[in-house]
Structures are given as structure tokens and as C-alpha cells.
């Protein structure tokens, strides 16, 4: 009884997030990130006369740089508060997770702080990426030769 009452009170006071609004914001901001990416690809391939494949590498490095820089200035969390997943799912979220871990553990020293903890969150992305890529690559090799 006590437990149920407690749960009722907690439920009443947890702020209700508007899921439809969140999704809409994520769609628009995420879409704008995609447009920005395509714009940068076009810009780089026009400026440096390189193929779109090379230009997309430049674009990814640019986005990672700005993701890191925005985290350093403390802007990234404010943008994520507004833009939700529109900034986490793009590659900027990957940069943010590394940068924030590096900033947070910096006071513990270069090796035991930054070196040991930089990949704390981003490590899961790399590890699951490599394992799944190996697994699916193996399947493709066995099926298609």
C-alpha cells in the first residue's frame, strides 16, 4: 500500500515529456544536420576538386571538430536540451561523448585521467561497431564468397 501510494506521488510529480514534440524537434534538427552534411560535401568537392567520397571524409572530420569545440564551450548540452536526438545520433554525439569524458577526467592526470577514460562512452560504439562489422562481414564472405 505504502509503495503504491509512493509510486502514485512520484508519477504525479515527474515532468511529462511531450513525445510528439520531441520527435518533431529531433526530425527537424536531425534533418538540418543532414542538409549541412550534404552542403559541406558539395562545398569541399567544389573547393578542393576532390571526389564526393573524399569530401565526405572531410565533412565528418569537420563535424567532429565542431562537436568537440561546442562541448568545450559548454554549448553542446544546451543544444541537446533543445534538439534532443537530432544532435546525439549524428557523428557530433560521438565527438561529444569523447570530449566530455576527456574534460571530466582531466584533473586525474594525463595517463590515468584522459588516457584511461576518454573512450569510456565512445568505446561501446567502436567495440560494437567492430564486432558487428566482423560478424556481418563473415556472413557476407560465407554467402557471397
Amino acid at each position, binding site marked *: 500500500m505504502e509503495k503504491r501510494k509512493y509510486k502514485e506521488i512520484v508519477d504525479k510529480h515527474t515532468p511529462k*515529456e511531450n*513525445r510528439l514534440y*520531441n*520527435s518533431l524537434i*529531433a*526530425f*527537424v534538427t*536531425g*534533418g*538540418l544536420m*543532414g*542538409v*549541412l*552534411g*550534404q*552542403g*559541406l*560535401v*558539395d562545398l569541399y568537392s567544389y573547393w578542393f576538386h576532390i571526389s564526393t567520397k573524399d569530401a*565526405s*571524409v572531410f565533412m*565528418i*572530420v569537420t*563535424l*567532429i571538430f565542431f562537436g*568537440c569545440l561546442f562541448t*568545450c*564551450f*559548454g554549448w553542446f548540452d544546451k543544444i541537446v536540451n533543445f534538439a*534532443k*536526438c*537530432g544532435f*546525439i*545520433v*549524428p*557523428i557530433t*554525439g*560521438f*565527438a561529444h*561523448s*569523447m*570530449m*566530455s569524458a*576527456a*574534460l571530466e577526467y*582531466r584533473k586525474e592526470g594525463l595517463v590515468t585521467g*584522459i588516457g584511461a577514460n*576518454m573512450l569510456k*562512452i565512445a568505446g*561501446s*560504439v567502436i567495440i*560494437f*561497431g567492430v564486432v*558487428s*562489422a*566482423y560478424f*556481418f*562481414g563473415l556472413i*557476407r*564472405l560465407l554467402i557471397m564468397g
Partner: protein
Amino acid sequence: MIYVNAFLFCGIVCVIGQLILDNTKLTPGHVTSLFVVLGAFLDTFSWYDKIILWAGGGAMVPITSFGHLLIHGAMKAASEYGFMGLLMGMFDLTASGISSAIIFSFFLSLLFKPKD
């Protein structure tokens, strides 16, 4: 037209991430890991290449492109060296992304203090 496609694809991926985040107890770390696996899965039979042709840079921006680049590099080397190639070429195409993220975060963390 490719800009519209880029908007649509990147937006839809972000909406899926937001829906997972809102309706389950998974953290953003789970969502990004899930999308990397999804990107690798979609590229198993080169479907992601078709998406890139359709959406251009919009398909390279979400974290799914990371999984795509991993398996793409692995398969490229595998076509030359067989099973060992999977291990040799894994980081060929993602090297720029991972290295730049490590280098930028290392040097910027020396310059800046954490803000909360």
C-alpha cells in the same frame, strides 16, 4: 533534390533514436551503439551504398555511417586477402574519424576547463 533526401533520411534516423530514447529505458549510449550495429547490418548486402547514392551526405552524418565504413573497409580488404582481410581492413575508412576525434579531444581538453 539530394538536399531533400538528406533532410528526410537524417531526420528519420534521428526520430527513431528519439522514439527509442523516450519509450524505453535505454541511454544515449545504447542508442548510438544500436545504430552502429544497424549501419553494419544494412551494409552486409550493400543496401547502405544505395542509401548513400540516394541521400548523399545526409547518409554519412548519422552514426550509422560509422558501421557502414567499418564493414566497407573490411570487405574491401577481404576481397583481396580473404578472411584475414576482415581484420586488416577494418579501420581503413574510419581511421580519419576515430583519429581526429581522439586528437581533437586530447588537445582541446588540455586547453579548456570543464563547464557545468
